[in-house]
């Protein structure tokens, strides 16, 4: 029990720091950050108060459910250059997405794949689809029905951040999970 709490502590710390990092480096993620409100403690920088906030405002939720909630709040997944597989660090979060979909067969998601501007446009359109398909396949392996997911690639046509350089490029190589 103590061990589990400890682990929860670490995970929430990680989730919080991920959100904090996102807040520093991105301007276009603000809608996601402002919408959840303060219930999960995502706006708090103090991990202690985060866990107590979470506990008090939603008394019946188990720690696992809180972890799942936090995971579902991450809807943008970034990719390395020229790589179509999602980052190993995102596996756990994506697993929570998959479980949520499998448990709610009426839920529909759209996976939107994107690429940075290097390379030709039509190749990047295909690369964006390959990235989104990587996540689609992971979902299917984890019990999601194919009919729940729509995949679309925008290639390099809808960058999250304009400009040349790795700073912008790393924000643009992504798959966005959009609830329909």
């Amino acid at each position, binding site marked *: 029990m103590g061990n589990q709490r400890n682990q929860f502590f670490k995970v929430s710390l990680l989730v919080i720091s991920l959100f904090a990092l996102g807040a520093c480096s991105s301007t276009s993620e603000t809608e996601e950050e402002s919408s959840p409100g303060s219930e999960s403690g995502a706006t708090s920088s103090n991990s202690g108060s985060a866990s107590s906030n979470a506990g008090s405002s939603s008394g019946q939720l188990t720690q696992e459910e809180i972890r799942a909630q936090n995971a579902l709040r991450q809807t943008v997944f970034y990719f390395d250059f020229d790589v179509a597989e999602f980052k190993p660090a995102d596996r756990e979060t994506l697993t929570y997405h998959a479980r949520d979909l499998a448990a709610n067969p009426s839920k529909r998601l759209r996976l939107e794949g994107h690429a940075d501007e*290097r390379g*030709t446009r*039509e*190749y990047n*359109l295909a690369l964006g*689809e*390959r990235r989104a398909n990587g996540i689609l396949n992971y979902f299917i392996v984890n019990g999601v029905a194919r009919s729940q997911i729509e995949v*679309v690639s925008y290639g390099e046509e809808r960058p999250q951040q304009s*400009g*040349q350089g790795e700073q912008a490029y790393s924000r643009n190589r992504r798959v966005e999970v959009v609830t329909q």
Partner: protein
Amino acid sequence: MKLRTFFLLSGIIFCFTLQSYAELSIQITQGIDNPIPVAVVPFTNESGGPFSQDVAQIVTNDLEQVGEFIALSRSNMLSMPSEEQEVFYRDWRLLAQDYLLIGKINQQPGSQLVQVQYEFFDINREMKLAGEVLTGSVTQLRDIGHTISNVVFEQVTGIPGAFTSQILYIVSEGAGPATTLFRLEKADYDGARPQILLESAEPIMSPSWSPNGQDVAYVSFETDLPRIYIQNIATGQRRQITNYPNINSSPVWSPDGSKLAMVLSKDGSPDIYVQDLNSNELMRVTDHPAIDTEPSWTPDGRHLVFMSDRTGQPQIYQIELGANSYNVERLTYDCFQCAKARFLPDGVNLVHVRRETRQSPTYQISILNIETLRVITLTDTALDESPSLAPNGSMIMYATKFNGRGVLDAVSIDGRVKFRLPSSQGDVREPSWSPFLN
């Protein structure tokens, strides 16, 4: 004689006042070492006018833009003839000119019609090479100027001019993903007279001009999914051509205009297909789990060239239509990435986008001779893509980045001449150069 001197003097004053009109914001970024000297005398207004377009200046801009010519400054002209009797070859030889273009414009009172008479001379051989009277509406003076440029260019180089051709391209404009607007636009080859053909809040991609010059095929995300459409350029009438699952992209017309090559990923991964536009019959051309995309037709219409990353990185391949879909010939080996290829009309030289090594992340427009395997890289900017060939085969227009914005540049196929189109608002990209238009 005295009278003629007066005429000449007044001509010189006239030309000083005209010079302030002489701008069209084309930027010649690289010219050749020994351009051909040509004098383009301001056309005389015999009746009607004044006109909003300076025909002689349009011709001057055309000729200088393609880099082969250097025009004599109007302030250095010793005379301003407007018809053959007024031409004294010695005047132009003194100024070291090889060619001379003169003309005059007549507009009947109360009429919108103008008659433009031009005459073109070889100074060294002291002979008239061409001349005619062109009639059109006063709003067509720009077209008349481009038509005269075509004649001059062909008389001197032996190659038909492409100055009356047009371009299609995509513009995106807006602050962020939520507010970006995408436009398909058409303009003269030099970027003048832009016209919006389609505007959308969703991306538009891959415009491709039909061989008869009447239609454009493109990809639009207007339904939230990439689908192929054909639109009549004059009427704006459009129809959706595809609605297959997943990617529908890269439409390219066959040389005879009866088919569209395209990319569909309905069966898993992107593969090349050909759709017959009359029967709607769909033929699968490639079948490979890797990405196959960016098809283009060989000049004879019997093969398709395409890009595939089946060996790990994009390389260029060729396949014979109707042949076994596994019978694929690889055309590029010596680059980290080679993509977006199409043959010049000779069927031997292959224009493509090249990234030499993994370490140098620059993409440039190059030409590979598939017989000698010689490669010429034409551009020296870092993010060059979407090369499109002028109808006379003399220049390639492509998209690049300048000061962080998308712009259109053009380069001659020998790499000697470059020019940049006047940039409008937003990011401009994916040029498609028209065929010869009538």
